[in-house]
């Protein structure tokens, strides 16, 4: 059993950049990706801000290194772009050199196509090459699309636990390596903007009509985003001689078991997930230098998460911020996108600010970091991701010690 999980590559695409370098530049320049919707038509496009990747599906196809006849769903294309960057950055020349798997995550899968074509699917008079998108509706389809493009064959799976999905794909991938079933796993997730999700969250009345304000007393809700991220996890054997970006040193999953959508007021599930994550490598709360919070900007999440953090850290909360005001809430992809940000934080000893924060919440002991902080050594980052259905997950990324 390989005890350590090394991260050797990463790739990301979201509203703040098409790759890791662009994303890092936006994070450093406090450049939010939240704006108005361009790429899909919606009745809400003028009054509900979102964080969209500013590229059409055709442009994404080219960006993914494909020809236009190889086009797929937006979810699959975003995923492939990030996965290719991750594989490239890990310096993988021969994907078959080690037993390699892919674990992806998504909440909407191919819904972006389904919602446009549903009536045509049901109309047997109509036909066309678009019929191929019927199969692409399934969540697993984008994973197989990415796997086929990369030549990954040894193990494939896809996870959907709402907004914690890609934290769980990272966790599952790490465990597959620890059990000796794989040497290398490309883990992450992808989700695209759809009318389905915009309208869904709108019915819950939790979408902010302005840029979201995580952990602010006057927060009004979240902004939806889209994007994808993948990181490459390797065993000691596979990572030998490579540059190690960071180690995955903890992971925890639990269920809040409180309500189908809302988090419990005391954040019991969140607390358990963070506690489990610390336990994996025997870390203490005081070892954590920075928390990349789930921090969606909804009234309920930020209070629940903040309360759990206050309890776990006995009100000695380290530097903390939510980066959702940059990327929007990218649902199934948010955990891995924030994993990439956490690794960047370690690599550059930088804490990215919690944008749009003004007024502190009186229920919480801490205030998030609101300016770009550089210079403090960041060894361990805790990253939280929570979702509908009470799914709560926490990950810990650590500096690689030679």
């Amino acid at each position, binding site marked *: 059993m390989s005890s350590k999980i090394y991260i050797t590559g990463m790739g990301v695409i979201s509203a703040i950049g098409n790759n890791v370098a662009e994303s890092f530049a936006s994070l450093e320049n406090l450049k939010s990706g939240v704006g108005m919707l361009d790429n899909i038509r919606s*009745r809400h496009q003028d009054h509900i801000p979102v964080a969209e990747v500013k590229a059409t599906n055709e442009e994404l196809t080219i960006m993914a290194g494909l020809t236009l006849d190889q086009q797929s769903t937006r979810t699959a294309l975003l995923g492939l772009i990030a996965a290719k960057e991750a594989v490239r950055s890990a310096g993988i020349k021969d994907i078959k050199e080690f037993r390699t798997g892919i674990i992806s995550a998504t909440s909407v*899968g191919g819904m972006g196509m389904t919602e446009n074509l549903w009536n045509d699917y049901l109309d*047997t008079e109509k036909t066309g090459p678009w019929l191929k998108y019927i199969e692409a509706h*399934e969540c697993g389809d984008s994973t197989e699309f990415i796997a086929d493009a990369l030549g990954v064959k040894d193990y494939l799976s896809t*996870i*959907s636990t709402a907004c914690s999905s890609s934290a769980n794909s990272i966790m599952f991938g790490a*465990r597959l390596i620890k059990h000796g079933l794989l040497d290398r796993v490309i883990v992450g997730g992808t989700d695209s903007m759809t009318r*389905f999700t915009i309208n*869904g969250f709108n019915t819950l009345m939790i979408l902010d009509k302005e840029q979201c304000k995580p952990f602010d007393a006057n927060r009004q809700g979240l902004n939806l985003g889209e994007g994808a991220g993948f990181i490459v996890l390797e065993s000691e054997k596979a990572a030998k001689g490579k540059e190690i970006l960071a180690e995955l040193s903890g992971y925890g999953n639990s*269920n809040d078991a409180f309500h189908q959508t809302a988090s419990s007021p005391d954040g019991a599930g969140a607390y358990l997930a963070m506690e489990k994550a610390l336990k994996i490598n025997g870390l203490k709360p005081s070892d954590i230098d920075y928390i990349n919070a789930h921090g969606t900007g909804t009234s309920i999440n930020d209070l629940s998460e903040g309360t759990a953090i206050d309890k776990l850290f006995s009100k000695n909360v380290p530097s903390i911020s939510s980066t959702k005001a940059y990327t929007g809430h990218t649902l199934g992809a948010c955990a891995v996108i924030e994993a990439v940000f956490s690794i960047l934080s370690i690599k550059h000893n930088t804490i990215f600010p919690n944008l749009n924060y003004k007024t502190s919440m009186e229920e919480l002991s801490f205030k998030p970091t609101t300016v770009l902080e550089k210079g403090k050594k960041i060894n361990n980052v805790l990253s939280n991701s929570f979702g509908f259905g009470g799914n709560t997950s926490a990950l810990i990324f650590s500096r690689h010690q030679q």
Partner: protein
Amino acid sequence: MEGFINGIGIISPQKTFGTDDFLSEVVEHNSKSLRCIEPSYKEFLNPVLARRMARIIKMGIAASNVCFKDAKVEIPDAIMTGTALGCLEDTEKFLLAIIENDEQFLTPTSFIQSTHNTVSAQIALQLKCMNYNFTYVHKGFSFESAVLDGLMTLAEGEAKNVLVGGHDEMTDKYYRVCDRIGYFKEETVPTMELINSKTNGSIAGEGAAFFVLSNAKSESTYAKLRGIKTIYKPKSNQEIESKITELLSSNGLTANDIDVVVYGINGDARFDKTYYHLKDNFFKNSTATYFKHLCGEYQTAGSFAFWVASKLIKTQSIPSAILIGDSRSRGFTSDGEQGLAIKNVLIYNTFLDSDHSVFLLSQC
């Protein structure tokens, strides 16, 4: 890695729920889309909770509930389920409302319940179970991923009992959509004739099957799960055989040790040849059975086969409804009375020839 199958709850197109019977009678559906025989849910859910729930959620709660009782487990240490399509009925309902009302006057209930993890989440919510909770959504690997996670979780040492399950539902509209890309047959085929069909496509199915996997044998144990392997888009029969050999040899077995093989034969002339190749060559000495004529084809049909294999071992009998033609070569009879012991059972299943899976179960 291994786990004891200590409890089962299954709702399917056959009479499998709330009974010890093992397919003594076959329910003929006269349909190209087999739907589950559903119980009354009053016993499992209070009406205030049930009023919002779509069929698949109720099936999931009822089947898991019976499964826990069967295993005499109150709260599992982990919940992991597989579903390719999630809560299809609610997804469709919300999608239709968006299209028909042009994004106006939408209500949240069907959206909330459309997320793929709703069934796992509702099981946890009913039990107030705050433990590990996962939902796998990878086509023909959905249930298989949940089972592997279950075995890994038991091997990690802290969990004693985990719930693994597979669930998918079919709707009238989604059937019509999938029918457009050749998933299903044009003609209706009688249940026991499906295996002889020479046309393309299969029949649609659905189901919700849950199992308690435990780290120790108990009074209720059905069988021991000794391993699982998935094979993605195999290029040849040799590749399939070498993966099966890996699984068998890691358990000190060879093909000759397998008493019964449960094949995912679904009457689709395009894909059944893989099964027949295994049956006539690699497993030529094993008794051959099949199951998809009873539950239909769906991404998590492996969970129905998992029930079949568990029952084969526990009852030490093979119902005639699943026996393939002339393959009583090892002396089994349909009632098992004079048969040899059923010690080792292997399941071989694929979804659309792309996602292949192998499960190994043994008597214990």
